[in-house]
């Protein structure tokens, strides 16, 4: 009876006095650190938005990230409805074409027809039937170029494609103007623009973040669990087991681990890569090392302290000592390292996706979006900037939060109240 009571007292001492005061204290410090606090809010916002992304889609707040509206391809970010942007784009293109044609006309008038246009579109005319009435509208131009064709070498094929395109564009413009109010596609508002298939960039960035953050969280948890287990056992038991485990960790440290992950990703092939579970495993398998070392160091420094001796003298078993007494005291360090591990996870995953070795279509992570954006960055800058900025902001906040937590939970700090 009395023994049980004493055990409870120890328990209570550990639970009520130590952990609660530590965490409450840490929270108090964190609140003083403005940057860390802002980062915490932003990170929470990201996590909530990405977590509830399917609900947001259902509620109609964001569009479906897979929905392709080809007519709205590559529109810039704007709060105006898509139809207006499409009209603006078409008008710009038409003005451009007309100017080029003017220049060509002037040039040809000055130099006479030249044979410098090497391409031959001779096979194209007549293939599209629906533009028949439209070509009548641009007949003056067409006739003009045909006139030239009479005494030139191959002028017909040189000016024809531009004129034909002008016709198509004008037709498309008319079509958009008439459908403006009836076609729901033109009513859409793309705050972050669209990609080359007319998908909403905002939705793409949110769903990309969903995968990236998911990989970050699950990977971190896996790495932390493995690291805690191996580190604590190695530190507490010591002796040959410690030696063996730590030599193993040393050798693993020597491995260029991103290269090993690249090998794994390359070897499992494209099909299996679609399920990004393997990506978790591949990255997590090689990133528990630091946590294991840190936890081991903490446990070794704590295992000879009085409270552990007290627990042992009362007959507590080894697992109980490790999990009830030692680990709660190292939790601060673990939390800090995990917070800093998560951005590195996200970076590594995106690194692989950027190289084409990570998450594959139809799934897309931030890394995939960035690498797609890079291909289009010359003309459609937002396709690169939207995912890049979203990702960088998140990583920035995670790093700030990790630093803030380290300051707040600093075990070396002496002036704790």
């Amino acid at each position, binding site marked *: 009876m009395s023994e049980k009571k004493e055990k409870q007292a120890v328990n209570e001492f550990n639970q009520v006095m130590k952990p609660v005061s530590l965490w409450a204290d840490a929270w108090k410090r964190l609140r003083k650190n403005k940057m860390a606090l802002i980062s915490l809010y932003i990170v929470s916002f990201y996590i909530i938005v990405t977590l509830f992304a399917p609900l947001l889609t259902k509620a109609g707040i964001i569009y479906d990230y897979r929905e392709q509206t080809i007519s709205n391809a590559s529109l810039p970010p704007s709060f105006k409805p898509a139809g207006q942007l499409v009209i603006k784009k078409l008008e710009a293109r038409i003005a451009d074409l007309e100017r080029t044609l003017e220049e060509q006309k002037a040039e040809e008038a000055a130099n006479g027809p030249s044979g410098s246009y090497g391409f031959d579109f001779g096979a194209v005319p007549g293939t599209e039937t629906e533009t028949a009435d439209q070509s009548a509208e641009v007949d003056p131009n067409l006739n003009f170029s045909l006139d030239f064709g009479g005494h030139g070498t191959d002028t017909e094929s040189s000016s024809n494609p531009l004129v034909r395109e002008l016709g198509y564009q004008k037709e498309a413009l008319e079509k958009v103007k008439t459908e403006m109010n009836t076609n729901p596609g033109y009513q859409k508002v793309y705050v972050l623009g669209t990609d080359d298939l007319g998908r909403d960039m905002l939705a793409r960035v949110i769903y990309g973040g969903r995968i990236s953050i998911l990989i970050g969280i699950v990977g971190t948890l896996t790495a932390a669990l493995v690291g805690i287990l191996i580190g604590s056992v190695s530190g507490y038991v010591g002796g040959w087991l410690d030696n063996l485990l730590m030599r193993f960790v040393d050798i693993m440290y*020597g*491995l260029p681990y991103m*290269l090993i992950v690249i090998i794994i990703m*390359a070897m499992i*092939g494209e099909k299996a890569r679609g399920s990004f579970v393997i990506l978790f495993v591949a990255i997590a398998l090689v990133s528990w090392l630091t946590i294991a070392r840190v936890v081991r160091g903490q446990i070794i420094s704590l295992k000879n302290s009085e409270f552990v001796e007290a627990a042992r003298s009362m007959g507590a078993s080894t697992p109980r000592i490790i999990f009830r007494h030692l680990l709660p005291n190292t939790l601060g360090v673990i939390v800090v390292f995990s917070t800093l591990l998560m951005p590195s996870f996200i*970076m590594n995953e995106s690194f692989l996706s950027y190289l084409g070795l990570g998450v594959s279509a139809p799934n897309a992570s931030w890394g995939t979006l960035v690498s797609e954006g890079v291909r289009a*960055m010359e003309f459609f800058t937002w396709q690169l900037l939207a995912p890049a900025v979203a990702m960088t902001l998140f990583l*920035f906040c995670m790093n700030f939060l990790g630093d803030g937590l380290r300051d707040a939970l600093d075990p070396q700090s002496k002036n704790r109240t």
Partner: protein
Amino acid sequence: MARYFIRRALSLIPTLFVIVTLSFFLIRLAPGGPFAREKDVPEFILQNLLKRYHMDEPLGKQYLRYLGDILRWDLGPSFRYRDLSVNEIIDKGLPVSMTLGVTSLVLAVVSGIAVGIISALRQNKWPDYVAVSIAVIGISVPLFVMGPILQLFVGMRWKILPMGQWISVHGIKAIILPALTLSFPYFAYIARLSRASILEVLRSDYIRTARAKGLKESMVVWKHVLKGALLPVVTYLGPAFSGIVVGSVVVETTFLIPGIGRPFVQSALNRDYTLIMGEVIVYSVILIFANLVVDLIYGLLDPRISYK
């Protein structure tokens, strides 16, 4: 010292052995061979192909053969680039990658320490705030975001520097953007690290003694503070170098640099067995020796460490 060096060098052999073994079996046990894509190859040609690359032998024999080849530094023929051997690809790319890597490392260390000193000596004044903010940004911006954005603005829009490719095409200017991109995260980390450790050293007793002796402030900083404060930076050189080596894969891909990084990614996508293995071995040797060198430098700088 010499004995320590030899012992450390010998202890690298098991690590290398593990790397070779692990990657060999990872690659061989994976489903689908390097010729799996060529579906309409007749059976007897496939057999000949397999024989040509000794892939018809039992796995153990292949492994032993490969170990023997590596000891003679013969990395075998590439599976995809049929007329090139892995040695040729690496010989051609390695100088380029090493130039990029070493330039980036030097850039990161020099500018990182400089910014660290400035911000520590002006603690909580505006240079400090600027430096700390840049450092956090540097750690958070991934290479594959930094690279394309520099390419877009500096190379494409403002046309100040070439967008990509190497010295052989654009002259020495070509190295600036890739080296900036590659060194930025490590510059940021080194700046933070040296700032923190200089602040710590500035509070120590021996600095107070040096000042009490009446030494000039510049003398205190250069001779006393830096010597003590830069040890953590030296320790970080190992991880920084390995980060730069791995990061150069992305930077080389982004800037179209003819190093060993792009063949590595290609080999991973193409399942070019021998090329992947060769690249991994080369990268590992570089990393392991870099760590060894860092250990030795550390020992030279810190008299408290003795080698037995």
